[in-house]
Protein backbone atom coordinates (compact mmCIF):
# COMPACT_ATOMS: atom_id res chain seq x y z
CA UNK A 1 0.00 0.00 0.00
CA UNK A 2 2.79 2.42 0.92
CA UNK A 3 4.55 1.72 -2.38
CA UNK A 4 1.34 2.31 -4.27
CA UNK A 5 0.82 5.58 -2.42
CA UNK A 6 4.35 6.84 -3.10
CA UNK A 7 4.15 5.93 -6.77
CA UNK A 8 0.72 7.47 -7.28
CA UNK A 9 1.56 10.67 -5.37
CA UNK A 10 4.84 11.00 -7.29
CA UNK A 11 2.98 10.73 -10.57
CA UNK A 12 0.51 13.39 -9.47
CA UNK A 13 3.33 15.76 -8.51
CA UNK A 14 4.94 15.39 -11.95
CA UNK A 15 1.61 16.03 -13.67
CA UNK A 16 0.97 19.09 -11.46
CA UNK A 17 4.38 20.39 -12.44
CA UNK A 18 3.55 19.92 -16.13
CA UNK A 19 0.17 21.61 -15.68
CA UNK A 20 2.00 24.68 -14.36
CA UNK A 21 4.28 24.60 -17.43
CA UNK A 22 1.29 24.45 -19.78
CA UNK A 23 -0.28 27.48 -18.10
CA UNK A 24 3.08 29.29 -18.19
CA UNK A 25 3.40 28.56 -21.93
CA UNK A 26 -0.13 29.87 -22.52
CA UNK A 27 0.82 33.06 -20.72
CA UNK A 28 3.63 33.57 -23.20
CA UNK A 29 1.46 32.78 -26.20
CA UNK A 30 -0.40 36.04 -25.64
CA UNK A 31 -0.05 38.23 -28.74
CA UNK A 32 2.62 40.81 -27.97
CA UNK A 33 3.03 39.17 -24.58
CA UNK A 34 1.20 40.12 -21.40
CA UNK A 35 2.26 43.77 -21.81
CA UNK A 36 0.18 44.22 -24.96
CA UNK A 37 -2.81 42.67 -23.27
CA UNK A 38 -2.60 45.00 -20.25
CA UNK A 39 -1.51 48.22 -21.89
CA UNK A 40 -3.83 47.89 -24.87
CA UNK A 41 -3.31 48.04 -28.63
CA UNK A 42 -2.12 51.65 -28.63
CA UNK A 43 0.84 51.07 -26.29
CA UNK A 44 4.19 52.35 -27.59
CA UNK A 45 7.21 50.02 -27.82
CA UNK A 46 8.82 52.10 -25.06
CA UNK A 47 6.01 51.62 -22.62
CA UNK A 48 5.92 47.90 -23.44
CA UNK A 49 9.66 47.59 -22.79
CA UNK A 50 9.28 49.49 -19.54
CA UNK A 51 6.39 47.29 -18.43
CA UNK A 52 8.26 44.11 -19.35
CA UNK A 53 11.27 45.24 -17.35
CA UNK A 54 9.14 46.23 -14.37
CA UNK A 55 7.30 42.89 -14.33
CA UNK A 56 10.40 40.81 -15.02
CA UNK A 57 9.15 39.71 -18.46
CA UNK A 58 12.48 40.63 -20.11
CA UNK A 59 14.42 37.88 -18.38
CA UNK A 60 15.08 34.44 -19.89
CA UNK A 61 12.14 32.02 -19.94
CA UNK A 62 13.59 29.48 -17.47
CA UNK A 63 14.28 32.29 -14.97
CA UNK A 64 10.76 33.60 -15.47
CA UNK A 65 9.35 30.12 -14.96
CA UNK A 66 11.21 29.66 -11.68
CA UNK A 67 9.93 33.03 -10.50
CA UNK A 68 6.42 32.10 -11.64
CA UNK A 69 6.59 28.80 -9.76
CA UNK A 70 7.91 30.57 -6.66
CA UNK A 71 4.96 32.96 -6.72
CA UNK A 72 2.51 30.08 -7.24
CA UNK A 73 3.85 28.25 -4.20
CA UNK A 74 3.17 31.29 -2.03
CA UNK A 75 -0.38 31.43 -3.41
CA UNK A 76 0.26 34.46 -5.62
CA UNK A 77 -1.58 34.12 -8.94
CA UNK A 78 -1.11 37.74 -9.98
CA UNK A 79 -3.48 40.69 -10.19
CA UNK A 80 -6.61 40.99 -12.30
CA UNK A 81 -6.22 43.52 -15.13
CA UNK A 82 -9.79 44.69 -14.76
CA UNK A 83 -11.12 44.05 -11.28
CA UNK A 84 -8.37 45.68 -9.17
CA UNK A 85 -8.13 42.61 -6.98
CA UNK A 86 -5.71 39.71 -6.66
CA UNK A 87 -6.58 36.57 -8.62
CA UNK A 88 -6.23 34.48 -5.46
CA UNK A 89 -8.81 36.50 -3.55
CA UNK A 90 -11.18 36.53 -6.56
CA UNK A 91 -11.01 32.74 -6.82
CA UNK A 92 -11.35 32.46 -3.03
CA UNK A 93 -14.60 34.42 -3.24
CA UNK A 94 -16.05 32.55 -6.19
CA UNK A 95 -14.91 28.96 -5.70
CA UNK A 96 -17.20 28.16 -2.71
CA UNK A 97 -20.21 29.30 -4.73
CA UNK A 98 -19.29 26.98 -7.57
CA UNK A 99 -18.86 24.16 -5.07
CA UNK A 100 -22.38 24.81 -3.71
CA UNK A 101 -23.89 24.69 -7.23
CA UNK A 102 -21.93 21.59 -8.25
CA UNK A 103 -22.57 19.87 -4.90
CA UNK A 104 -26.32 20.41 -5.13
CA UNK A 105 -26.32 19.08 -8.70
CA UNK A 106 -24.38 15.96 -7.66
CA UNK A 107 -26.72 15.28 -4.73
CA UNK A 108 -29.80 15.70 -6.92
CA UNK A 109 -28.24 13.52 -9.62
CA UNK A 110 -27.37 10.75 -7.16
CA UNK A 111 -30.85 10.77 -5.61
CA UNK A 112 -32.41 10.29 -9.06
CA UNK A 113 -29.77 8.25 -10.90
CA UNK A 114 -29.41 5.42 -8.37
CA UNK A 115 -33.09 4.38 -8.39
CA UNK A 116 -33.31 4.94 -12.18
CA UNK A 117 -30.33 2.65 -12.74
CA UNK A 118 -31.82 -0.01 -10.46
CA UNK A 119 -35.17 0.17 -12.29
CA UNK A 120 -33.39 -0.28 -15.61
CA UNK A 121 -31.41 -3.26 -14.36
CA UNK A 122 -34.39 -4.98 -12.75
CA UNK A 123 -36.68 -4.30 -15.74
CA UNK A 124 -33.95 -5.13 -18.24
CA UNK A 125 -35.21 -5.49 -21.82
CA UNK A 126 -38.65 -4.18 -20.86
CA UNK A 127 -40.29 -0.93 -21.93
CA UNK A 128 -39.00 1.06 -18.94
CA UNK A 129 -35.43 0.07 -19.75
CA UNK A 130 -35.73 1.10 -23.40
CA UNK A 131 -37.36 4.42 -22.60
CA UNK A 132 -34.72 5.32 -19.99
CA UNK A 133 -31.85 4.15 -22.23
CA UNK A 134 -33.20 6.27 -25.08
CA UNK A 135 -33.51 9.25 -22.75
CA UNK A 136 -29.91 8.79 -21.60
CA UNK A 137 -28.68 8.69 -25.21
CA UNK A 138 -30.59 11.89 -25.95
CA UNK A 139 -29.16 13.56 -22.84
CA UNK A 140 -25.61 12.63 -23.94
CA UNK A 141 -26.06 14.31 -27.31
CA UNK A 142 -27.69 17.44 -25.86
CA UNK A 143 -25.32 20.30 -25.07
CA UNK A 144 -25.79 21.70 -21.56
CA UNK A 145 -26.72 25.14 -22.89
CA UNK A 146 -29.50 23.83 -25.14
CA UNK A 147 -30.96 21.96 -22.20
CA UNK A 148 -30.75 25.10 -20.08
CA UNK A 149 -32.48 27.16 -22.76
CA UNK A 150 -35.33 24.64 -23.04
CA UNK A 151 -35.79 24.71 -19.26
CA UNK A 152 -35.82 28.53 -19.29
CA UNK A 153 -38.39 28.59 -22.11
CA UNK A 154 -40.68 26.08 -20.42
CA UNK A 155 -40.37 26.82 -16.70
CA UNK A 156 -39.50 30.49 -16.69
CA UNK A 157 -41.17 31.95 -19.77
CA UNK A 158 -44.20 29.67 -20.32
CA UNK A 159 -45.13 28.37 -16.87
CA UNK A 160 -43.42 31.16 -14.91
CA UNK A 161 -42.58 28.88 -11.98
CA UNK A 162 -38.84 29.50 -11.64
CA UNK A 163 -36.76 32.60 -12.45
CA UNK A 164 -34.24 32.43 -15.31
CA UNK A 165 -31.54 34.15 -13.29
CA UNK A 166 -29.59 32.42 -10.54
CA UNK A 167 -29.40 33.93 -7.00
CA UNK A 168 -27.20 37.04 -6.95
CA UNK A 169 -26.50 37.10 -3.21
CA UNK A 170 -22.96 37.66 -1.93
CA UNK A 171 -22.95 34.97 0.73
CA UNK A 172 -23.58 31.24 0.49
CA UNK A 173 -26.41 31.57 2.99
CA UNK A 174 -27.99 34.24 0.80
CA UNK A 175 -27.72 32.02 -2.26
CA UNK A 176 -29.28 29.05 -0.49
CA UNK A 177 -32.15 31.23 0.78
CA UNK A 178 -33.22 31.88 -2.83
CA UNK A 179 -34.07 28.27 -3.55
CA UNK A 180 -36.50 28.83 -6.47
CA UNK A 181 -33.79 30.72 -8.37
CA UNK A 182 -31.40 27.81 -7.83
CA UNK A 183 -33.72 25.21 -9.34
CA UNK A 184 -33.04 25.76 -13.06
CA UNK A 185 -29.24 26.01 -12.85
CA UNK A 186 -28.99 22.97 -10.58
CA UNK A 187 -31.35 20.86 -12.70
CA UNK A 188 -29.55 21.86 -15.91
CA UNK A 189 -26.26 20.69 -14.42
CA UNK A 190 -27.75 17.55 -12.90
CA UNK A 191 -29.38 16.11 -16.03
CA UNK A 192 -26.12 15.24 -17.78
CA UNK A 193 -24.78 13.62 -14.60
CA UNK A 194 -28.00 11.63 -14.20
CA UNK A 195 -27.60 10.21 -17.71
CA UNK A 196 -24.04 9.07 -17.03
CA UNK A 197 -24.64 7.77 -13.48
CA UNK A 198 -27.83 5.87 -14.26
CA UNK A 199 -26.11 4.11 -17.18
CA UNK A 200 -23.34 3.15 -14.81
CA UNK A 201 -25.75 1.99 -12.08
CA UNK A 202 -27.63 -0.14 -14.59
CA UNK A 203 -24.57 -2.13 -15.60
CA UNK A 204 -23.16 -2.29 -12.06
CA UNK A 205 -26.42 -3.68 -10.66
CA UNK A 206 -26.68 -6.15 -13.55
CA UNK A 207 -23.10 -7.33 -12.90
CA UNK A 208 -23.73 -7.78 -9.20
CA UNK A 209 -27.06 -9.53 -9.67
CA UNK A 210 -25.27 -12.37 -11.46
CA UNK A 211 -22.73 -12.82 -8.66
CA UNK A 212 -22.72 -15.96 -6.57
CA UNK A 213 -23.40 -14.22 -3.27
CA UNK A 214 -26.71 -13.04 -4.70
CA UNK A 215 -27.59 -16.62 -5.59
CA UNK A 216 -26.60 -17.68 -2.08
CA UNK A 217 -28.75 -14.97 -0.56
CA UNK A 218 -31.67 -16.04 -2.75
CA UNK A 219 -31.14 -19.66 -1.75
CA UNK A 220 -31.33 -18.62 1.89
CA UNK A 221 -34.74 -17.16 1.09
CA UNK A 222 -33.97 -13.48 1.46
CA UNK A 223 -36.41 -11.10 -0.20
CA UNK A 224 -35.37 -9.37 -3.43
CA UNK A 225 -35.62 -5.96 -1.78
CA UNK A 226 -33.28 -7.03 0.99
CA UNK A 227 -30.80 -8.54 -1.47
CA UNK A 228 -30.81 -5.31 -3.45
CA UNK A 229 -30.27 -3.11 -0.40
CA UNK A 230 -27.78 -5.24 1.54
CA UNK A 231 -25.71 -6.88 -1.18
CA UNK A 232 -26.08 -5.42 -4.64
CA UNK A 233 -26.28 -1.72 -3.78
CA UNK A 234 -23.33 -1.80 -1.41
CA UNK A 235 -21.08 -3.27 -4.05
CA UNK A 236 -22.38 -1.11 -6.86
CA UNK A 237 -22.03 2.16 -4.98
CA UNK A 238 -18.28 2.00 -4.30
CA UNK A 239 -17.21 2.44 -7.95
CA UNK A 240 -19.82 5.18 -8.34
CA UNK A 241 -17.60 7.31 -6.10
CA UNK A 242 -14.68 6.80 -8.47
CA UNK A 243 -16.88 7.66 -11.43
CA UNK A 244 -17.45 10.98 -9.69
CA UNK A 245 -13.69 11.56 -9.64
CA UNK A 246 -13.40 10.80 -13.35
CA UNK A 247 -16.33 13.08 -13.98
CA UNK A 248 -14.72 16.08 -12.33
CA UNK A 249 -13.51 17.80 -15.54
CA UNK A 250 -16.98 17.40 -17.10
CA UNK A 251 -18.58 18.82 -13.95
CA UNK A 252 -16.29 21.85 -13.93
CA UNK A 253 -16.92 22.50 -17.63
CA UNK A 254 -20.65 22.16 -16.98
CA UNK A 255 -20.36 24.75 -14.21
CA UNK A 256 -18.64 27.13 -16.64
CA UNK A 257 -21.55 26.94 -19.09
CA UNK A 258 -24.36 26.90 -16.53
CA UNK A 259 -22.93 29.81 -14.54
CA UNK A 260 -22.47 31.98 -17.62
CA UNK A 261 -25.99 31.11 -18.79
CA UNK A 262 -27.81 31.77 -15.53
CA UNK A 263 -25.47 34.54 -14.39
CA UNK A 264 -24.52 32.60 -11.25
CA UNK A 265 -21.66 34.42 -9.50
CA UNK A 266 -19.23 31.47 -9.27
CA UNK A 267 -15.80 30.69 -10.68
CA UNK A 268 -17.21 29.71 -14.08
CA UNK A 269 -18.83 33.11 -14.57
CA UNK A 270 -15.62 34.79 -13.40
CA UNK A 271 -13.73 32.77 -16.02
CA UNK A 272 -16.21 33.59 -18.77
CA UNK A 273 -16.25 37.31 -17.97
CA UNK A 274 -12.45 37.29 -17.96
CA UNK A 275 -12.44 35.65 -21.39
CA UNK A 276 -14.75 38.37 -22.73
CA UNK A 277 -12.59 41.11 -21.21
CA UNK A 278 -9.18 39.55 -22.03
CA UNK A 279 -8.34 39.48 -18.32
CA UNK A 280 -5.52 36.97 -18.75
CA UNK A 281 -4.19 36.68 -15.17
CA UNK A 282 -7.66 35.62 -14.01
CA UNK A 283 -8.15 33.29 -17.01
CA UNK A 284 -4.86 31.52 -16.43
CA UNK A 285 -5.25 31.53 -12.64
CA UNK A 286 -8.62 29.80 -12.87
CA UNK A 287 -7.24 27.37 -15.49
CA UNK A 288 -4.42 26.45 -13.13
CA UNK A 289 -6.75 25.99 -10.15
CA UNK A 290 -9.08 23.82 -12.22
CA UNK A 291 -6.17 21.69 -13.47
CA UNK A 292 -4.81 21.24 -9.95
CA UNK A 293 -8.27 20.36 -8.65
CA UNK A 294 -8.65 17.68 -11.34
CA UNK A 295 -5.25 16.13 -10.59
CA UNK A 296 -5.91 16.06 -6.85
CA UNK A 297 -9.45 14.78 -7.41
CA UNK A 298 -8.27 11.83 -9.44
CA UNK A 299 -5.48 11.15 -6.92
CA UNK A 300 -7.98 11.01 -4.05
CA UNK A 301 -10.27 8.80 -6.14
CA UNK A 302 -7.48 6.35 -6.91
CA UNK A 303 -6.35 6.16 -3.29
CA UNK A 304 -9.91 5.74 -2.03
CA UNK A 305 -10.45 2.96 -4.52
CA UNK A 306 -7.24 1.20 -3.49
CA UNK A 307 -8.26 1.43 0.16
CA UNK A 308 -11.69 -0.04 -0.60
CA UNK A 309 -10.57 -2.65 -3.12
CA UNK A 310 -7.28 -4.46 -2.34
CA UNK A 311 -7.09 -5.96 -5.87
CA UNK A 312 -6.22 -2.57 -7.37
CA UNK A 313 -3.13 -1.87 -5.31
CA UNK A 314 -1.60 -5.30 -5.84
CA UNK A 315 -1.91 -4.95 -9.64
CA UNK A 316 -0.33 -1.54 -9.88
Amino acid sequence: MTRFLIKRVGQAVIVLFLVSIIVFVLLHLLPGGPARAILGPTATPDSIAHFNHQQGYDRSLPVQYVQYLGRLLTGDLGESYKLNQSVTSLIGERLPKTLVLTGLAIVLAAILAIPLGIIQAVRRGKAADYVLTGAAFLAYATPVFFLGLILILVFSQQLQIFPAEAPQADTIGGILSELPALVLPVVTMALGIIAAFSRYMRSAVLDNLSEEYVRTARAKGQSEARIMARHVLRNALIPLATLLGLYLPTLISGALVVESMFNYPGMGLLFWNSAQGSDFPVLLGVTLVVGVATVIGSLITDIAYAVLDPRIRSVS
Partner: protein
Amino acid sequence: MTAAAVEATQPEAAVATPSLARRTLSVFARNKLALLGAVLLVGLIAFCFLGPLIHHTDQVHTDLSQANLAPGSAGHPLGTTDLGYDMLGRLMYGGQTSLEVGLAAGLLATLFGTVYGAVAGYFGGWVDAAMMRITDAALAIPALFLLVVVAAIITPSKPVLILIIASVAWLSPARLIRGEALALRSRDYIHAMRLMGGGGSRAVFQHIVPNAIGTVIVNATFQIADAILYVAYLSFLGLSIPPPAADWGSMLSSGITYTQVGYWWLIFPPGIAIVLVVAAFNFIGDGLRDAFDVRLQKN
Protein backbone atom coordinates in the same frame (compact mmCIF):
# COMPACT_ATOMS: atom_id res chain seq x y z
CA MET B 1 15.00 -7.07 -48.48
CA THR B 2 12.94 -8.23 -51.46
CA ALA B 3 9.45 -7.11 -52.25
CA ALA B 4 8.18 -10.61 -51.52
CA ALA B 5 9.68 -10.53 -48.03
CA VAL B 6 8.00 -7.23 -47.30
CA GLU B 7 4.74 -8.70 -48.51
CA ALA B 8 5.16 -11.69 -46.23
CA THR B 9 5.64 -9.56 -43.11
CA GLN B 10 2.32 -7.78 -43.49
CA PRO B 11 -0.15 -10.37 -44.71
CA GLU B 12 -3.08 -8.98 -42.70
CA ALA B 13 -2.96 -5.55 -44.22
CA ALA B 14 -2.16 -6.59 -47.77
CA VAL B 15 -4.39 -9.57 -48.44
CA ALA B 16 -7.50 -9.21 -46.32
CA THR B 17 -8.46 -5.59 -47.06
CA PRO B 18 -11.30 -5.91 -49.61
CA SER B 19 -13.23 -8.69 -47.90
CA LEU B 20 -12.54 -7.15 -44.51
CA ALA B 21 -14.04 -3.84 -45.55
CA ARG B 22 -17.07 -5.62 -47.02
CA ARG B 23 -17.58 -7.71 -43.89
CA THR B 24 -17.30 -4.65 -41.67
CA LEU B 25 -19.80 -2.86 -43.86
CA SER B 26 -22.31 -5.69 -43.77
CA VAL B 27 -22.20 -5.94 -39.97
CA PHE B 28 -22.59 -2.18 -39.81
CA ALA B 29 -25.58 -2.31 -42.16
CA ARG B 30 -27.38 -4.82 -39.93
CA ASN B 31 -27.15 -2.40 -36.97
CA LYS B 32 -30.36 -0.36 -37.10
CA LEU B 33 -29.17 2.49 -34.91
CA ALA B 34 -25.97 2.82 -36.95
CA LEU B 35 -27.98 2.94 -40.17
CA LEU B 36 -30.27 5.55 -38.65
CA GLY B 37 -27.17 7.55 -37.77
CA ALA B 38 -25.82 7.29 -41.30
CA VAL B 39 -29.16 8.32 -42.83
CA LEU B 40 -29.43 11.26 -40.40
CA LEU B 41 -25.92 12.39 -41.25
CA VAL B 42 -26.41 12.20 -45.02
CA GLY B 43 -29.69 14.07 -44.59
CA LEU B 44 -28.10 16.83 -42.51
CA ILE B 45 -25.18 17.23 -44.92
CA ALA B 46 -27.57 17.44 -47.87
CA PHE B 47 -29.71 19.96 -45.97
CA CYS B 48 -26.77 22.24 -45.15
CA PHE B 49 -24.83 22.06 -48.42
CA LEU B 50 -27.55 21.41 -51.04
CA GLY B 51 -30.40 23.21 -49.26
CA PRO B 52 -29.16 26.73 -50.12
CA LEU B 53 -29.41 25.81 -53.82
CA ILE B 54 -33.19 25.52 -53.41
CA HIS B 55 -33.87 27.99 -50.60
CA HIS B 56 -32.03 31.21 -51.53
CA THR B 57 -31.40 33.63 -48.65
CA ASP B 58 -29.12 36.55 -47.83
CA GLN B 59 -27.03 35.61 -44.80
CA VAL B 60 -24.65 38.57 -44.90
CA HIS B 61 -26.80 41.72 -44.90
CA THR B 62 -29.07 42.40 -41.95
CA ASP B 63 -32.65 43.54 -42.54
CA LEU B 64 -34.17 44.95 -39.36
CA SER B 65 -37.54 45.53 -41.01
CA GLN B 66 -37.84 41.75 -41.20
CA ALA B 67 -36.54 40.99 -37.67
CA ASN B 68 -38.04 38.36 -35.34
CA LEU B 69 -40.81 37.19 -37.66
CA ALA B 70 -42.61 34.09 -36.40
CA PRO B 71 -42.38 30.81 -38.33
CA GLY B 72 -44.82 30.59 -41.21
CA SER B 73 -44.32 34.21 -42.32
CA ALA B 74 -44.28 34.76 -46.08
CA GLY B 75 -41.01 33.39 -47.49
CA HIS B 76 -39.69 32.48 -44.02
CA PRO B 77 -40.94 29.00 -43.06
CA LEU B 78 -38.90 29.03 -39.83
CA GLY B 79 -39.22 32.77 -39.18
CA THR B 80 -36.37 35.26 -38.96
CA THR B 81 -33.67 36.12 -36.40
CA ASP B 82 -33.25 39.29 -34.38
CA LEU B 83 -31.24 40.79 -37.26
CA GLY B 84 -33.71 39.74 -39.94
CA TYR B 85 -31.82 36.73 -41.31
CA ASP B 86 -34.06 33.96 -42.62
CA MET B 87 -33.92 31.22 -39.97
CA LEU B 88 -34.13 28.23 -42.35
CA GLY B 89 -31.36 29.64 -44.53
CA ARG B 90 -29.25 30.46 -41.48
CA LEU B 91 -29.69 26.95 -40.18
CA MET B 92 -28.15 25.66 -43.44
CA TYR B 93 -25.43 28.30 -43.49
CA GLY B 94 -24.57 27.82 -39.80
CA GLY B 95 -24.63 24.06 -40.24
CA GLN B 96 -21.96 24.30 -42.91
CA THR B 97 -19.61 25.93 -40.40
CA SER B 98 -20.43 23.45 -37.64
CA LEU B 99 -19.98 20.43 -39.91
CA GLU B 100 -16.87 21.68 -41.71
CA VAL B 101 -15.06 22.73 -38.54
CA GLY B 102 -16.19 19.64 -36.63
CA LEU B 103 -15.14 17.23 -39.37
CA ALA B 104 -11.81 18.91 -40.06
CA ALA B 105 -10.90 19.32 -36.38
CA GLY B 106 -11.99 15.78 -35.50
CA LEU B 107 -9.97 14.26 -38.36
CA LEU B 108 -6.91 16.41 -37.70
CA ALA B 109 -6.99 15.51 -34.01
CA THR B 110 -7.30 11.81 -34.81
CA LEU B 111 -4.44 11.98 -37.30
CA PHE B 112 -2.05 13.71 -34.93
CA GLY B 113 -3.17 11.73 -31.88
CA THR B 114 -2.73 8.44 -33.75
CA VAL B 115 0.84 9.18 -34.77
CA TYR B 116 1.69 10.53 -31.31
CA GLY B 117 0.20 7.53 -29.52
CA ALA B 118 1.73 5.02 -31.93
CA VAL B 119 5.19 6.54 -31.47
CA ALA B 120 4.87 6.57 -27.68
CA GLY B 121 3.54 3.03 -27.51
CA TYR B 122 6.02 1.57 -30.00
CA PHE B 123 9.14 3.05 -28.45
CA GLY B 124 7.98 2.53 -24.86
CA GLY B 125 10.32 3.18 -21.92
CA TRP B 126 11.15 6.75 -21.03
CA VAL B 127 9.97 8.11 -24.41
CA ASP B 128 6.54 6.71 -23.66
CA ALA B 129 6.61 7.91 -20.04
CA ALA B 130 7.58 11.46 -21.05
CA MET B 131 5.08 11.65 -23.91
CA MET B 132 2.24 10.28 -21.82
CA ARG B 133 2.86 12.56 -18.83
CA ILE B 134 2.45 15.49 -21.23
CA THR B 135 -0.96 14.19 -22.32
CA ASP B 136 -1.87 13.51 -18.67
CA ALA B 137 -1.13 17.10 -17.76
CA ALA B 138 -3.03 18.53 -20.73
CA LEU B 139 -5.98 16.23 -20.00
CA ALA B 140 -6.03 17.43 -16.39
CA ILE B 141 -7.18 20.83 -17.57
CA PRO B 142 -10.76 20.41 -18.82
CA ALA B 143 -10.82 20.85 -22.62
CA LEU B 144 -13.39 23.63 -22.52
CA PHE B 145 -11.17 25.76 -20.28
CA LEU B 146 -8.15 25.31 -22.57
CA LEU B 147 -10.32 26.13 -25.59
CA VAL B 148 -11.68 29.29 -24.00
CA VAL B 149 -8.19 30.50 -23.03
CA VAL B 150 -6.79 29.90 -26.52
CA ALA B 151 -9.85 31.41 -28.21
CA ALA B 152 -9.52 34.48 -25.95
CA ILE B 153 -5.89 34.88 -27.03
CA ILE B 154 -6.55 34.52 -30.76
CA THR B 155 -9.80 35.64 -32.40
CA PRO B 156 -10.58 32.59 -34.52
CA SER B 157 -11.20 32.37 -38.23
CA LYS B 158 -12.44 29.06 -39.62
CA PRO B 159 -8.95 27.50 -40.10
CA VAL B 160 -7.76 28.84 -36.72
CA LEU B 161 -10.84 27.42 -35.01
CA ILE B 162 -10.10 24.02 -36.56
CA LEU B 163 -6.52 24.17 -35.26
CA ILE B 164 -7.59 25.30 -31.79
CA ILE B 165 -10.08 22.48 -31.38
CA ALA B 166 -7.71 19.88 -32.83
CA SER B 167 -4.96 21.09 -30.49
CA VAL B 168 -7.11 20.03 -27.54
CA ALA B 169 -8.92 17.04 -29.03
CA TRP B 170 -5.86 14.95 -30.06
CA LEU B 171 -5.20 13.90 -26.46
CA SER B 172 -7.71 11.11 -26.08
CA PRO B 173 -6.95 9.34 -29.40
CA ALA B 174 -3.25 9.59 -28.48
CA ARG B 175 -3.88 7.75 -25.24
CA LEU B 176 -6.07 5.14 -26.90
CA ILE B 177 -3.71 4.34 -29.80
CA ARG B 178 -0.77 4.22 -27.41
CA GLY B 179 -2.49 1.33 -25.64
CA GLU B 180 -2.98 -0.48 -28.96
CA ALA B 181 0.65 0.15 -29.94
CA LEU B 182 1.89 -1.25 -26.64
CA ALA B 183 0.05 -4.48 -27.37
CA LEU B 184 1.10 -4.62 -31.04
CA ARG B 185 4.81 -3.98 -30.53
CA SER B 186 5.40 -7.44 -29.09
CA ARG B 187 3.78 -9.23 -32.06
CA ASP B 188 5.92 -11.58 -34.14
CA TYR B 189 5.70 -9.60 -37.37
CA ILE B 190 7.12 -6.55 -35.63
CA HIS B 191 10.05 -8.66 -34.37
CA ALA B 192 10.54 -10.03 -37.87
CA MET B 193 10.55 -6.54 -39.32
CA ARG B 194 13.13 -5.41 -36.76
CA LEU B 195 15.38 -8.41 -37.51
CA MET B 196 15.30 -7.42 -41.17
CA GLY B 197 16.55 -3.98 -40.22
CA GLY B 198 13.27 -2.03 -40.30
CA GLY B 199 13.38 1.20 -38.33
CA GLY B 200 10.98 2.99 -36.01
CA SER B 201 9.12 5.04 -38.58
CA ARG B 202 8.53 1.93 -40.71
CA ALA B 203 7.13 0.12 -37.66
CA VAL B 204 4.83 2.99 -36.75
CA PHE B 205 3.46 3.82 -40.20
CA GLN B 206 3.52 0.40 -41.93
CA HIS B 207 2.56 -1.85 -39.05
CA ILE B 208 1.24 -0.20 -35.89
CA VAL B 209 -1.12 2.33 -37.47
CA PRO B 210 -2.60 -0.01 -40.14
CA ASN B 211 -3.26 -2.69 -37.53
CA ALA B 212 -4.90 -0.26 -35.15
CA ILE B 213 -7.03 1.16 -37.95
CA GLY B 214 -10.30 -0.11 -36.47
CA THR B 215 -9.70 1.73 -33.22
CA VAL B 216 -8.58 4.81 -35.16
CA ILE B 217 -11.71 4.95 -37.32
CA VAL B 218 -14.12 4.34 -34.45
CA ASN B 219 -12.38 6.97 -32.37
CA ALA B 220 -12.43 9.46 -35.26
CA THR B 221 -16.23 9.22 -35.35
CA PHE B 222 -16.51 10.09 -31.67
CA GLN B 223 -13.88 12.81 -32.06
CA ILE B 224 -15.94 14.48 -34.78
CA ALA B 225 -19.02 14.40 -32.55
CA ASP B 226 -17.00 15.98 -29.74
CA ALA B 227 -15.46 18.57 -32.07
CA ILE B 228 -18.93 19.65 -33.26
CA LEU B 229 -19.94 20.06 -29.62
CA TYR B 230 -16.76 22.05 -28.86
CA VAL B 231 -17.54 24.41 -31.75
CA ALA B 232 -21.02 24.85 -30.36
CA TYR B 233 -19.79 25.47 -26.80
CA LEU B 234 -17.19 28.00 -27.91
CA SER B 235 -19.69 29.84 -30.09
CA PHE B 236 -22.27 29.78 -27.35
CA LEU B 237 -19.72 31.40 -25.04
CA GLY B 238 -19.16 34.05 -27.72
CA LEU B 239 -15.59 33.04 -28.51
CA SER B 240 -15.93 31.60 -31.98
CA ILE B 241 -15.77 33.10 -35.48
CA PRO B 242 -17.18 36.65 -35.25
CA PRO B 243 -20.42 37.66 -37.07
CA PRO B 244 -21.79 37.77 -39.75
CA ALA B 245 -20.44 34.20 -39.76
CA ALA B 246 -22.70 31.85 -37.87
CA ASP B 247 -22.87 28.30 -36.64
CA TRP B 248 -25.45 26.39 -34.65
CA GLY B 249 -23.86 27.34 -31.32
CA SER B 250 -23.75 31.07 -32.01
CA MET B 251 -27.35 30.94 -33.28
CA LEU B 252 -28.41 29.52 -29.90
CA SER B 253 -26.35 32.12 -28.13
CA SER B 254 -28.09 34.99 -29.93
CA GLY B 255 -31.45 33.34 -29.21
CA ILE B 256 -30.88 33.41 -25.44
CA THR B 257 -31.71 37.14 -25.31
CA TYR B 258 -35.20 36.41 -26.56
CA THR B 259 -36.20 33.53 -24.30
CA GLN B 260 -38.12 35.87 -22.00
CA VAL B 261 -40.37 36.99 -24.86
CA GLY B 262 -40.77 33.40 -26.02
CA TYR B 263 -39.13 33.43 -29.47
CA TRP B 264 -38.76 29.67 -29.37
CA TRP B 265 -37.91 29.41 -33.08
CA LEU B 266 -34.52 31.00 -32.39
CA ILE B 267 -33.68 28.18 -29.97
CA PHE B 268 -35.13 24.88 -31.12
CA PRO B 269 -33.94 24.55 -34.75
CA PRO B 270 -30.21 25.01 -34.08
CA GLY B 271 -30.41 23.09 -30.78
CA ILE B 272 -32.16 20.12 -32.36
CA ALA B 273 -29.70 20.21 -35.27
CA ILE B 274 -26.77 19.88 -32.83
CA VAL B 275 -28.44 17.02 -30.95
CA LEU B 276 -29.19 15.19 -34.23
CA VAL B 277 -25.71 15.50 -35.69
CA VAL B 278 -23.97 14.51 -32.44
CA ALA B 279 -26.33 11.56 -31.95
CA ALA B 280 -25.78 10.53 -35.59
CA PHE B 281 -22.00 10.40 -35.19
CA ASN B 282 -22.32 8.54 -31.88
CA PHE B 283 -24.66 5.94 -33.42
CA ILE B 284 -22.29 5.49 -36.37
CA GLY B 285 -19.33 5.16 -33.98
CA ASP B 286 -21.13 2.52 -31.88
CA GLY B 287 -22.04 0.61 -35.04
CA LEU B 288 -18.49 0.73 -36.36
CA ARG B 289 -17.13 -0.44 -33.03
CA ASP B 290 -19.37 -3.52 -33.14
CA ALA B 291 -18.48 -4.10 -36.78
CA PHE B 292 -14.74 -4.00 -36.15
CA ASP B 293 -15.07 -6.18 -33.04
CA VAL B 294 -16.57 -8.94 -35.16
CA ARG B 295 -13.58 -8.75 -37.44
CA LEU B 296 -11.22 -9.11 -34.48
CA GLN B 297 -13.09 -12.15 -33.17
CA LYS B 298 -13.00 -13.90 -36.53
CA ASN B 299 -9.27 -13.35 -36.98
